[in-house]
C-alpha cells in the first residue's frame, strides 16, 4: 500500500497570539508553530494501515518554523520518507498551500498514484478552504472527511470508512481507492516516540527538500480586512468566596430560576 500523509504547521495557541502591526496578520515575534493535531492523527492512521497491510508512508509538508522536528518525528514513528517544500513565502492560506502540495506530489518520482492520501479533516487556520477537499478536487479523487476509522480491503481496492455525524452518530461508508480522506481522529491515540528515536532519526535519516512550484493554482482568495481579538458578548458573573458561600449563592440563583 502506498500512503501519502500531508502535514501542516499551525500557530501554537498555547502562546498568546498577538496581532501584527498591519492589523491583518499574526505577529510572528513570539509565535510558535505546532503540527496540526488532526494531521497527527492522519499520520497515526497511516502508520496503523502500514502495520496491517505493509507498504510505504510518505509525509509531505510545507516549510514552516519547527517543521523539521515534526518531519523527523514522523520518520522516527515509522514513516518511510519525508519531503519539505521550501522557498515558499511566509504563511500561506489553505488554498495556496494545497496547490503547492499537489504540484509537489507530482514531482516526487514514484509517489503518485498513491492508494490513500491522508490529512487532517480540518485545521485552526483554515480560512479559505479545507485541505482534504481541495487536494481531492485537484487530483480528481473521491474525498470524505471527519473520518475516525479506515479499514482497507487491498484485494478489491476499497476502504470501509467511518465518519462522524452530529449526536454521536457515525456513518459507515465504502470508498473506492485511491481516495483522499480527512482524518478527525485515528483509531488509536497518536503513538509516542521517545526523544532518543527522534534524535537518531535526525542523524540517520534525511528530509528531502523540494522547491516550491510556481503559481498559486488560480484560487481566488478573499482579502483580509482586519484581524481582531474576539469581542466577547459578555462574561460570566463570577461568584467568589469559599465553596460553601458559592454553593449558597448558586442555590439562590437556581431558586430564582425556579430550578430548586
Amino acid at each position, binding site marked *: 500500500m502506498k500512503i501519502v500523509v500531508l502535514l501542516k504547521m499551525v500557530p501554537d495557541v498555547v502562546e*498568546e497570539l498577538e496581532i501584527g502591526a498591519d492589523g491583518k496578520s499574526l505577529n510572528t515575534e513570539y509565535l510558535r508553530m505546532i503540527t496540526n493535531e488532526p494531521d497527527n492523527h492522519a499520520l497515526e492512521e497511516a502508520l496503523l494501515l502500514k502495520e496491517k497491510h505493509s507498504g510505504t508512508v510518505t509525509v509531505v509538508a510545507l516549510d514552516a518554523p519547527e517543521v523539521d522536528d515534526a518531519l523527523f518525528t514522523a520518520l522516527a514513528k515509522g514513516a518511510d520518507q519525508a519531503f519539505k517544500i521550501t522557498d515558499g513565502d511566509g504563511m500561506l492560506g489553505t488554498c495556496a498551500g494545497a496547490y503547492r502540495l499537489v504540484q509537489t506530489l507530482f514531482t516526487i518520482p514514484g509517489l503518485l498514484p498513491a492508494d490513500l492520501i491522508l490529512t487532517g479533516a480540518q485545521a485552526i487556520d483554515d480560512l479559505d478552504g479545507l485541505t482534504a477537499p481541495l487536494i481531492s478536487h485537484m487530483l480528481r479523487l473521491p474525498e470524505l472527511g471527519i473520518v475516525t476509522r479506515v479499514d482497507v480491503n487491498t484485494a478489491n481496492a476499497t476502504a470501509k470508512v467511518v465518519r462522524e455525524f452530529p449526536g454521536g452518530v457515525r456513518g459507515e461508508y465504502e470508498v473506492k481507492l485511491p481516495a483522499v480522506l480527512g482524518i478527525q481522529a485515528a483509531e488509536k*491515540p497518536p503513538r509516542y516516540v521517545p526523544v532518543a528515536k527522534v534524535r537518531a532519526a535526525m542523524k540517520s535519516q534525511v528530509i528531502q527538500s523540494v522547491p516550491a512550484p510556481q503559481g498559486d493554482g488560480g484560487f481566488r482568495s478573499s482579502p483580509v480586512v482586519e484581524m481582531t481579538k474576539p469581542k466577547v458578548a459578555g462574561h460570566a458573573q463570577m461568584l467568589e468566596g469559599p465553596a460553601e458561600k458559592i454553593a449558597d449563592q448558586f442555590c439562590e440563583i437556581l431558586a430564582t430560576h425556579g430550578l430548586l
Partner: protein
Amino acid sequence: MPDPVSLPILGLPGYFHLWALTLVSFFVFGNRVVRHVRVLAQARPENRWDHLGQRIGLVVKNVLGQRRMLDEPLIGAAHLIIFWAFVAYASTFFWNLLRGLIPALAIPYPDDVRWVAFVVQALGVLGVIALAVAAVRRYMFTPTSLERSRDATLILILIAVVLVSALAGAGFKAMATGGEHSWQPVGKFVAAIFVGVGVPRWLAPALFLWAWWIHMITVLGFLAYLPYSKHLHLLASPFGVFFASLEPNKMPAPSEGASRLQDFTWRELFSGFACAECGRCDRTCPSFSSGEPLSPKQLIHHVKELVLAGVENPAGGNGKKFLGDVVRPEDVWACTTCGSCMERCPVFNEHIPLLIEMRRKLVSEGDVQTRLQEAFTNLSRYGNSFGQSERKRAAWTQSLDFKLKDARKEPVQWLWYVGEYACYHPSLLEITRSLARTLRTAGVDYGILYEAERNSGNDVRRVGEEGLFELLRQKNVATLEKAQFKNLFTTDPHVYNTLKNEYPNLNHGQHVVSHYTELLAWLLADGQLQVKHKLPYRVTYHDPCYLGRYNGVYDPPRAVLKALGVDLNEMPRSHGQSFCCGAGGGRIWMEEIGGAKTRPSEIRVREAASLDGVQYLVVACPKDYVMFQDALKTTGLEGKLFIKDIAELAEEAIAA
C-alpha cells in the same frame, strides 16, 4: 568414644558412606550453582569489582553485623544469632567432614576441642531459642508480605534438626564419657535430661553415633537442597552485599531498556537469588501500602523465576513475555522511586534499577499512557509538564513589588533554580513569592533564569525517557554555563537531586547545589535573618524522599524549624524512614491506579494527624504540598490538620 566414621555400616566402613554422600551432595549442589552462574553470564555485564575496600566494609557491617536486619529489633537479633550459629555450625560441619572423610588425618573432631565445643553449644542453644522466636513470629504474628511457605517451614525444621542433633549428640557424648567434659555445660545439661527421662547409659555411645550421622546427613542434604530452595539466599546474599551498588541512588547506565533476561545486567538479575523474601520492601513501599498492584518483593521473585526458568530450561522459554505477561506494565509504572525498598533491603537488592530498565523499554516502544505522553510532549516543547508557555515561567514574580534579578543578564551570588511546580502550579505561587520576599529581607543577592529555566529532568529520567532527559539537561547546562553565579539553590528536592548528582560541574568547578532550607538555615544561623517572634505551633515535618533518603539532608530543615521556635514532633516514620507522598517517579504525571484502597499521601497525612495536638504538617517540597493538600480533602482531615511549607513559616516568623 567410638569414631563415627570407622564403624562399619551395612558392611562398609562409615567413611565410605560419608564419601559417597558427600560426593553426591557436592555434585548436586555444584551442578545447580554452576547452571545459575551460566544463566547470569547471558545477561549484560556490569563491573562491580571496584572499590574493594568499601565493598569489604559493606560485607562486614551488613553480613557479619546484620545491620539492616536490626531495624526490626526482635527478629533482627534472632536472625543475627541464627546467622552466627549457622556460621559456627557450618565451620564445624566442614571440620567434621574433613576429619570424617580422611580418618588418617590426625586432627580431633571439633566437639573434642574445648573452646570450639563451648562456643558451638552456646550458639546452638541460643540458635534454638532464636528459631523458636522466628517461628512464632512467622506463624502466629505473621507480618505483611511474609509467607508461610512450605519451603520456609522445611528450612526451619532442617536448621532445628541440625542444631538439636548436635546438642543431643553432645548430651549423649557427655552421658557416655561421664564427667570428662565438664566444660560442656550444655552437654552436661542435656545429658542430665536424658538420664532423667530414663535413657540407659549403655545406649549413649550408639545414640551419639546416630546423632552424629543424622547431623551430617541433614547438613549434606541441606547443602544439596540449598540451591533449589529460597535459602539459596544463604549463599547468594553475602555476594549480593559484596556486589552492592556503592551509589544506590544512581541511575542504571544508559541502555535500551529491558524486557527479557538478556537485557538486564547480571547484578540486576542477581537480586532474585539474594532475596530471602522477608517482605521488608513491601512493608515500606508506598505503592504496595496503598493497595496498588506493585509489590517490590513479587518483582524480585519474578526476576528469580526468570533466571530459574533459564536454569531449568536452557533451551527455550515458555512463550510468556517477562515484561508484559509476568510483570505487567501497570506494576512497572506504579513505582514512585522513593528508595525505601532499597534502603531497607538487608541484602542490598536493586528494585528500582529493575523498574527503570523496564520503564525504558516501555518508553522506547511507545507503550506509554496518554497523560504521560502529554507530559513528555509538553516537557519537550515547553520545558514544563503543565503545557504552559515557557514565556510564563516567571509570571509568578509579577505580583511581587520588586523585580528579581535576571541571572542570564547580570551576575548574582545565588542562582535560584525555582522548578516547574513552584513556578506554574496555582496553589504554590504564593509560597514561592513568600520565599522571594524572605530572601530579599535577608539581603541575599539572588536571581532566576526567567524563561530559560526548564524542567531539570529528574523525574523524566526516573520514568525512563533518557533521551528527553538528555535534551533537557543539554539545554539547561547551556543556560547555566552562560549565567553568572557563585552558588545555586532550589526549591524542589527533585531538582536538587539531579542538579547535584546528575549534572556536570556547575558554577565553574565548584558544583555546590543547595536546597532552600539549607540556605535558610545558614541565614538564620548567621543572623542575616532574624526571627522577630517565635511561632507557637505544634508541627511535624515530612522528610522529602529526594532531599532526605536520597541526599541525606535531614538536619537543615529541622534547624530552621528550631530557630523559628515551633514545637517539632516527629512522626513514627521520619528521616530515612520517611513515607513517600506518592508523587515521585513521574507518578504525578500519570493516571491514578484504579482500585487502590487509598493513596500514599492519605496514609501519610493520617500518620501526621495521629500525633497529639499537631496542627501543621510541614513540608519542604512543592509536590508534597500539592499531594498532601489533596489528601486532606479526600481523608476529611481538612480543618483538623494544615499543610505549611517551611518558606511560609519563615516569612511569618521574620515579619515585624
